[in-house]
């Protein structure tokens, strides 16, 4: 409709470029963390993650083996042979090298460097060198070599293996992952059941005070859960639940109910009246109507809320910290574990990035698989 006056063709490329920029801006931060989680600690601290995507050029200084111990007499010359990478790590296939720090790329691999008075040095791509000269030249300290190598992008899944199997309970995410799952699943399912019945009553049953109850639910939608922390913690401790899974399930159920009731009621109100009235005429009870007609028809709304509640409980930190995690730390969840890692492992990005990605991966998968329901829920859930 915008191209009626031909505006689309003139602005089309501008729009495309703007969207590319916007998307890049939004994806880059996450992508950076993802790339970092597949790099080793040395790689992460050596260069930015964006450098990991391209072959990297690296220059290192090496010294050949001690001539006094390793030299071999060959004719009238002394020779030291070996491989530069024997001690220390290999940096990849050698492209160029030099013997002085002022000309680190003076020679290509395989070249023979003339060091004067018959002293020669040669180095191939794999790091094998031959250093030869007379008795005086091949003595003292070993010849230095400045080596420049290009290494292809290199990624490893070691970080993930480490973090899931680490013996250090502060680093190990496997337990926190299971704990999060334990919190999330009941905390998603229970409010749905409770809310569905209430939503049906608010949508299809006539009774005095219905409008006021709906208004209350709308009001409770925005009550900050910060207010609930102390009174409920006191209550939980008072009735013996204390800090633990039961407490956090109940808390998530309570906090999730207003949105659940609101979403489900709005959806159920829109169901066709005829179906329900016909069922009533045929003698169905309200309980039968609810379980046999309303619940199956409300599947999209149930799915919407389930995704919301799942994302919210999975990503939650505050409720878990207050109602679940006790002094023993046995029941820590992933978000809490990551915050602790930020404190203790602030500079160890290979651990942080991987831990964060372990916790992000599941919600992202749910998000991409069920985006349709999430969008639908958002559209229905924002109070109009």
């Amino acid at each position, binding site marked *: *409709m*915008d191209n*009626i006056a031909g505006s689309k063709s003139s602005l*089309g490329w501008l*729009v*495309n470029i703007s*969207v590319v920029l*916007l*998307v890049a801006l*939004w994806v880059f931060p*996450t992508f*950076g*963390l993802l790339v*970092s989680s597949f790099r080793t600690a040395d790689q992460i*601290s050596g260069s*930015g*993650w964006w450098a990991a995507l391209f072959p990297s050029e690296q220059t290192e200084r090496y010294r050949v083996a001690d001539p006094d111990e390793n030299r071999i007499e060959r004719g009238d010359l002394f020779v030291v042979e070996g491989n530069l990478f024997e001690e220390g790590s290999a940096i990849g296939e050698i492209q160029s090298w030099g013997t002085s720090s002022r000309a680190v790329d003076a020679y290509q691999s395989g070249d023979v460097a003339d060091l004067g008075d018959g002293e020669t040095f040669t180095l191939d791509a794999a790091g094998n060198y031959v250093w030869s000269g007379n008795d005086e030249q091949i003595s003292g300290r070993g010849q230095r070599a400045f080596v420049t190598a290009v290494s292809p992008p290199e990624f490893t899944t070691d970080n993930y293996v480490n973090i899931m199997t680490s013996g250090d309970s502060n680093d190990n995410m496997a337990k926190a992952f*299971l704990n999060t*799952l*334990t919190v999330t699943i*009941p905390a998603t*399912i*229970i409010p749905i059941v*409770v809310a569905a019945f209430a939503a049906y*009553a608010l949508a299809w049953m006539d*009774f005095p005070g219905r*409008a006021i109850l*709906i*208004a*209350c639910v*709308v009001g409770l939608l*925005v*009550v*900050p859960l*910060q*207010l609930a*922390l*102390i*009174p409920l913690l006191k209550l939980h401790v008072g009735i013996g639940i204390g800090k633990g*899974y039961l407490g956090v*399930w*109940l808390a998530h*159920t*309570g906090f999730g*109910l207003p949105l659940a009731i609101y979403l489900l009621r709005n959806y159920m109100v829109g169901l066709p009246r005829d179906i329900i009235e016909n069922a009533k005429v045929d003698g169905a009870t309200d*309980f039968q109507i609810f379980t046999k007609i309303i619940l199956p028809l409300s599947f999209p709304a149930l799915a919407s809320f389930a995704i919301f509640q799942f*994302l919210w409980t*999975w990503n939650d930190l*505050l409720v878990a*910290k207050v109602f679940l995690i006790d002094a023993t730390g046995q*029941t820590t969840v992933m978000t809490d574990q*990551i915050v602790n890692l930020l404190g203790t492992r602030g500079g160890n*990005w290979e651990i942080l990035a991987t831990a964060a990605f372990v916790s992000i991966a599941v*919600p992202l998968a749910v998000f*991409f698989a069920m*985006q349709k329901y999430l969008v639908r829920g*958002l559209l229905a859930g*924002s*109070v*109009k």
Partner: protein
Amino acid sequence: MNPAILGLFTIVAGVGGCLLYFWGSNQFLDKVVFPAKGPKAGDNINKANMVRPWLFLFPAMFALGLYLAYPVFETLRLSLTDHDQGGAFVGLANYNQMFGEPKFWEALRNNLLWLIVVPAASTAFGLLAAQLTDRIKWGSIAKSLIFMPMAISFVGAGVIFKLVYETRPADQNQIGILNAVWLQFDGGFGSFLMLQALPTLILLSFGAIVAYVGWIFVRPIAESRQNGGGAGFVPLRLFVGAAALYLVYLSISSLIGVFTFDYPYGEPQTWLTIPFWNSFLLMVVLIWIQTGFAMVILSAALRGIPEETIEAAIVDGANPFQVFFKIKVPQIMGTIVVVWTTITITVLKVFDIVFAMTNGQWETQVLANYMFDKLFRANDWGVGSAAAIVIMIMVSPILVWNVYNARKEMK
């Protein structure tokens, strides 16, 4: 017991218990209390139908009351008592103590900054993204990518952006992208363009928009005093006008700052420790998350605009910008307000981002984190509750507005 088994047991018990409760209580009502037979069958059916809604509602109402309504009053009560003195009533002493703390005012100031910047920026970016992606072929992919941060936890987003803001000493390779970009600036023309011209443009457009919104609010008073339409709104209008004036003043004064500021080119910055500006860097995280939400809702609203209005405007010779600002935006104003208020509520409750990234150090404190600090570190329940009440008071205008609208809609 193993937590996983306990969890499974809870699901079965919870769901089964709920179903059993609903089924059993309905059966009990129909068969025992008011049986639909005998001489009073009709009467009994009516009575049963009067009670039944409450059977359906009871568990939800009980949970809502216990977990959301009761705490509001209990927190209010706690904020007037002293935990250390065994819960003795101390009047407003907790509030007095809180108002005497500079950290509280810092938190309040930062919260107000968050309240202005985050909803505005998220809505603006969301609107921009919605409008742009609606016009291109791969728009749905672009939307899904911008929407993606919605699924990421605040803590996860905190880690993501900590890497962006990471600092290394000047002689090492920077691994944070912000510092890497920053070190590209050397004070030349490119730096002028990005660090002075662009902020000037942003500040000018911000000032212009604020001035325009302020004018919309004040104009009815200026033009016709006798045309009532709710005299009670006059103070509100004047307040918005004054706030707009202040923001315009603020943007002009920052404009001078942009040109007089001596940029430390070539030195890597520890971004999160720069007072005042670090709050904005934390806000970026929330804006990054919330833009997708704004975009999804606004995009649906944009598609709901009747095409005739746009066609008519184009026929009348409106350019794309006029179509957008004068035809489309006014028609989705209601949705923009909804998005704005929803993000505002999220902002008021923001805790995880600050907790994970700076924990309120370097003057980044916000109310929710201040409250958590008081509750669980200082163990001062009175002041913590008082801070929670301050958050509640800030939310309540939106609460009233939402309830008012919901009731209006139902009638």
